[in-house]
């Protein structure tokens, strides 16, 4: 990913988001068996691994008009939930955290005062030896090596936390790394391995012999550990960061799209715990129904031949013409809903759930807003995205404990459907990064056409055929940049979308006729 911003008088005045990698999986899939597709699509990403598998089996099941057994639906919910519980804390602490937390400042912290702060912030959090953490950080710095923390903009005026607060979050950074090992172990119980689970099939799941009491108990033990971490560390930390940075209200967008996820009955999509919906122009009070026929992918500024098409008819016909922001500048297409750019992801899901009065979402969102001294209107921001990510992690992790009760060791978990010789299918889900859709056109029992419209193309795609900027391009405009050579503010906005690609930022300062290239900080 390459983000280019133009800074005028210390504020971002224009932005271009460019996907620098070509994804050829749609082409590879042609003429293969529909039921094999998920093994290929799951490899679209090495981070968000399960989601492209389940979208694929769902689209083939949709083409074959299959209803999967309850055990399969519950296992898939647990696998998807496990993906959230694993990914979201990593995003906050390890990918986004260094945008808010000054690790070097932690070196001048008083460990005793930090322990008092930790106790005040979250009395039930695991007790940490802050003195030892500080020593460990000091060792890195003294050796001239910052270890995991090299390359940050330490000391930048945009950091607002005290040394003690920074030490607390640095300690939690390390703590969260240990937690993610447990989250990955949990995912592998019904997934067979992590990443890239192996237990999906068109028609259900193959982990029948793991749907037994002791495996379910092991899952619950690891889940309980994660839930304690979410309740006593992740949520309190996010609330605290939101409070300290409450005045930094940048990086918002206005339109949102959510396909919905976590079906609670065999009726699948209509019974989703997190409901589907769209929001236009920040109007959270009006949640519109999602009409999938309104989706099209524009390629006017992308390196593809062809025109704007619905995904079911979509084409993948690459034509690289060089990076030119006035013409074509991205390998990402520009998905649009009714010709509007839409943000997908945690904030879209939580705003739709909030607008639809899902109790857990309403309570947690209001709690964060009250604690941080913000209003619902402030949710359209980077901080809104950070908070939504933590809130949904808690909602999902809590629900997972209940879902476990629904597993039936004696029940069916896989059926073998007949794949039609010719059919169209669509499979959607909510990946941690946002709304994901796969479309298949089966011809002669083989894949005639396959298209994937992924969260990062919604959020990070380029301008469309009407020259309208994509969500991150619009969200960046208006962001203050104190020092164009250290654009931490730009990174905050970009990172808040959890880009699944490595990112380079180019800052252009036309007044001083200077360009700063910042790579992957």
């Amino acid at each position, binding site marked *: 990913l390459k983000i280019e911003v133009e800074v005028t008088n210390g504020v971002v005045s224009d932005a271009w988001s460019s996907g620098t990698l070509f994804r050829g999986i749609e082409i590879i899939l042609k003429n293969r068996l529909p039921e094999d597709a998920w093994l290929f699509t799951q490899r679209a990403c090495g981070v968000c691994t399960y989601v492209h598998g389940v979208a694929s089996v769902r689209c083939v099941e949709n083409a074959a008009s299959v209803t999967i057994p309850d055990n399969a639906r519950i296992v898939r919910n647990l696998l998807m939930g496990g993906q959230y519980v694993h990914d979201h804390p990593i995003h906050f602490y390890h990918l986004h955290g260094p945008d808010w937390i000054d690790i070097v400042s932690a070196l001048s912290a008083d460990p005793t005062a930090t322990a008092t702060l930790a106790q005040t912030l979250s009395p039930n959090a695991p007790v940490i030896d802050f003195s030892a953490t500080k020593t460990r950080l000091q060792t890195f710095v003294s050796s001239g090596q910052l*270890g*995991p923390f090299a390359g940050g903009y330490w000391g930048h005026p945009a950091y607002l936390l005290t040394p003690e607060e920074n030490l607390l979050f640095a300690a939690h950074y390390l703590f969260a790394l240990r937690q993610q090992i447990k989250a990955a172990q949990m995912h592998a119980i019904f997934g067979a391995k*992590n990443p890239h689970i192996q237990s999906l099939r068109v028609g259900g799941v193959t982990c029948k012999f793991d749907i037994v009491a002791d495996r379910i108990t092991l899952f619950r033990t690891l889940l309980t550990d994660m839930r304690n971490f979410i309740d006593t560390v992740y949520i309190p930390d996010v609330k605290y960061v939101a409070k300290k940075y409450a005045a930094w209200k940048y990086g918002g967008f206005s339109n949102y799209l959510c396909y919905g996820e976590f079906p609670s009955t065999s009726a699948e999509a209509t019974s989703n715990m997190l409901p589907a919906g769209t929001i236009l122009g920040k109007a959270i009070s009006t949640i519109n129904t999602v009409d999938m026929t309104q989706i099209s992918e524009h390629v006017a500024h992308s390196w593809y031949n062809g025109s704007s098409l619905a995904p079911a008819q979509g084409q993948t016909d690459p034509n690289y013409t060089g990076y030119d922001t006035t013409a074509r500048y991205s390998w990402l297409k520009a998905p649009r809903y009714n010709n509007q750019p839409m943000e997908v992801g945690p904030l879209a899901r939580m705003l739709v759930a909030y607008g639809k009065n899902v109790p857990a979402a309403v309570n947690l969102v209001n709690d964060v807003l009250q604690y941080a001294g913000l209003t619902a209107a402030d949710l359209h921001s980077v901080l809104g995205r950070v908070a939504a990510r933590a809130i949904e992690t808690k909602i999902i992790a809590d629900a997972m404990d209940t879902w476990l009760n629904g597993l039936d060791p004696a029940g069916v978990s896989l059926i073998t459907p007949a794949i039609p010789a010719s059919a169209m299918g669509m499979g959607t889900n909510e990946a941690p990064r946002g709304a994901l859709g796969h479309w298949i056109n089966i011809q002669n029992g083989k894949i005639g056409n396959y298209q994937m419209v992924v969260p990062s193309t919604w959020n990070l795609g380029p301008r469309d055929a009407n020259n309208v900027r994509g969500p991150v391009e619009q969200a960046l405009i208006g962001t203050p940049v104190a020092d164009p050579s250290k654009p931490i503010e730009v990174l905050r906005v970009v990172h808040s979308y959890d*880009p*699944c690609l490595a990112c380079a930022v180019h800052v252009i300062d036309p007044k001083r006729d200077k360009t700063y290239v910042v790579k*992957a900080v």
Partner: protein
Amino acid sequence: MSKNEILVLGVGNILCSDEGAGVHCVHRLQERFVFSGNVKLLDGGTLGMRLLGALQESTHCIVADVATFGFTPGYVMRLGMEDVPKNCAAKNSLHQVNFSETLVIAQSLGILPATVIIGIEPLDIETPSISLTVPVAEKIDEMCGLILDEITALGGSYERKPKVDVDEEMGSGKPSFDYDSTKQYNNLCFYGHKPH
């Protein structure tokens, strides 16, 4: 410590020529030997931070990987943690966490087992190819030999499998090849391709 779990971890990207040398080592060991119960062989691919769990569960780790020190391509070396660069940057994507950074993170968490690295100087780690270059392919056996020595020193053991038909082992499309590690194959490389 009562347990003595030895992890043999091959890392790298087998799609980029010599980048996958460590993974090729693990595959070759799996093909040719049966190991005692306390030895675990793992194809770590490019999993980065996702390998923390496997590291945490082990008391000793033998890493097989490429190491670029500027030696002649194919030069095999035994390295310790002190040779691993610690300059890993704060990340914006998990895709960017490479294996040496994972080792440093594991160390900072206090979960790194006693670790040695059997490294090999690569010739080409960029060209998309599932084959190793000739000078590296010729030294995979040497790397495997060093790994076996480490396993023995750490209290693990192994037995050679009966000679297998390579065609059967490797799946379709490969010629049958009766491999003998005591012989020198200077011009014939099992995995090798000529560098351009």
